[in-house]
């Protein structure tokens, strides 16, 4: 049917503004691709020497690049996962409070404050973590290890300074909270009022209404918000470098002095004194982080696309 229409299509008059605008958008769109390709090419070229580096080039006793990068990749994912475990329930709670529970005036003010959190530079969060949070949590960690040390996660010996991966995850959770909250709030506010009123009319309490109408509607939104938060947590550098007491090992214990560090923090710590192959090795770990972030985002896309049909968003 399109062919017949196409033949006698009446061409819309092209004004200068149309042409300029369409060119501008095409340029902007392809610029993103070009930058991404340039970054990927740079990382690939620079990291080639790292894959053939000898054990002497590595800090610590890693035998090759993969042995060196594996604990770092683990630490990156582990700290981000812990941060999300803390941040997601909290963010959903705050978003629901703002959208469905709080009086309108309070809700607006609260929304602004949450958004303000996103404007705090990460180095400030780092200082807060090292100066306030870590000393505050340390006595709590000590008793946690004392009473629950039999759980592998809380195994001792406890860190004397509180600068552990759990503290880092709490700092990261606070950092990703604003972005997750903001998106969830917007999604929850978009729930069709008819759904909400219908469930209330059927005799649902407010909680039941939220569970039946708001949350299913917002599920894909919650997931994409979490993935955006995850992206920030994966790449966070300064706060982790400042707060964490790093050690290049895969460790699950949350409260000890030895903690798996993240790729970004490791680059920040070692780049200033790196030279020769050391620089290439650090850039290669950057390439690994790039790939991890890309993979996480692609998985998020797939999940969102699959859920779209059930969300009611269409």
């Amino acid at each position, binding site marked *: 049917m399109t062919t017949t229409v196409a033949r006698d299509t009446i061409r819309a008059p092209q004004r200068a503004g149309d042409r300029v605008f369409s060119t501008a958008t095409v340029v902007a769109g392809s610029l993103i691709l070009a930058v991404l390709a340039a970054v990927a090419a740079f990382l690939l070229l620079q990291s080639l020497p790292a894959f053939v580096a000898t054990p002497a080039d590595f800090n610590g006793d890693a035998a090759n690049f993969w042995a060196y990068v594996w604990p770092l990749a683990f630490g990156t994912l582990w700290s981000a996962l812990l941060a999300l475990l803390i941040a997601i329930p909290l963010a959903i709670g705050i978003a629901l409070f703002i959208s469905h529970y709080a009086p309108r005036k309070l809700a607006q003010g609260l929304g602004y404050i949450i958004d303000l959190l996103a404007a705090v530079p990460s180095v400030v969060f780092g200082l807060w973590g090292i100066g306030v949070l*870590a000393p505050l949590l340390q006595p709590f960690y000590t008793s946690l290890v004392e009473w629950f040390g039999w759980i592998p996660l809380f195994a001792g010996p406890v860190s004397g*300074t509180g600068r552990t991966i759990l503290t880092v995850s709490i700092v990261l959770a606070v950092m990703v909270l604003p972005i997750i909250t903001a998106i969830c709030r917007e999604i929850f506010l978009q729930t069709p009022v008819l759904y909400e009123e219908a469930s209330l009319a059927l005799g649902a309490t407010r909680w039941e209404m939220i569970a039946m109408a708001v949350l299913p509607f917002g599920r894909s939104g919650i997931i994409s918000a979490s993935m955006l938060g995850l992206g920030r947590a994966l790449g966070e550098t300064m706060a982790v470098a400042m707060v964490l007491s790093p050690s290049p090992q895969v460790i699950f214990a949350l409260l000890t002095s030895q903690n798996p560090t993240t790729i970004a923090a490791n680059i920040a710590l070692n780049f200033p004194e790196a030279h020769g192959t050391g620089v290439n090795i650090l850039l290669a770990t950057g390439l690994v982080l790039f790939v991890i972030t890309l993979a996480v985002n692609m998985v998020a896309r797939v999940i969102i696309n699959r859920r779209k049909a059930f969300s009611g968003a269409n």
Partner: protein
Amino acid sequence: MNFTRFGRPAVIAVVAALALSSCAANEAAPAASDAASTLTGTLTGAGSSAQGSAQEAWIAAFQTANPDVTVNYDPSGSGAGRATFIAGGSDFAGSDSYLKDEELAGTFAACAPTGKAVDLPVYISPIAVIFNVEGVKDLNLDSATLGKIFKGDITTWNDPAIAALNPKATLPTTAITAVHRSDDSGTTKNFSDYLNQTAPDVWTEKPGDPFPYQTGEGAKGTSGVVDAVTNGTGTIGYADASKAGKLGVAKIKVGDKFVGYTADAAAAVVNDSPLVEGRDASDLAIKIDRLTTDPTHYPLVLVSYALVCTEYAKPAQGELVKAYVSYMAGTDGQSVAASAGGAAPLSADLADKVAAVLETIK
């Protein structure tokens, strides 16, 4: 030859008239008889970040005295500084370790073919063992115990090994958190070197910039270590002595006595240490005598060097390096470094030796 002698002042005159200062005036520098204020040009250095704050103070003072000279120093790290200097990217390098034999065997792009690179000690910093333990003000440690603490073999403060060295102290049962540098650092290398030489049975790893064991707690930079030790409980760490602040500082065992760090004791051990053997007389690389038994010595020190050429490919740069490094190693420069970076001034003997080598730089 005659032409250049007469030609140079003429060139300067023309250039001055045209108000084009830097390049041609640079050429004239060697001809000037009394150095100081007639120096012009740009001097580039890179390397040790331990020297960073001292370099800033030196540069500020030197540029005030020589308004036409610009000095740049990039605290990119000792390894990077040496690499830059070897490749000719800088006129001198700051380094926490002296040039290796294989580095000396190679060529240095900034030096004239007849010249070579030498190590000149310009910055001595004692490393303090800092601690924060409730109820403990004074702490004596020998190197074996210190090594075991940082290696994780001793885990509580009331360990018999610590108690034996501190009969008067009331040591708590608190767990020890030993804090080390999480970034690569010359401070770690010297700390490791001290333990490796004085307690080889305990500290079996060879010294290097990263901390060698996967125990204890890491913190970023000197300030990070000091912060962690201050805010934690039962903590111990090592840091440049000037940053120790109000924290407790352990005395280390030298011979039969326990010695706390002082600028004099740090300068003394460097002064009495032998030079590295098998090098040219003009190379003042020092083999720090960590095993000293003289209680006026404090062997846990970091010595940082200025790496310079004995003869520069560009004589003008040679003049500048000579003037700047002479200032650094001189009395004024050393007292500036002491107040800015907390360094221990070079002893008079050593300063004379450095000055003698600098005299020969072309």
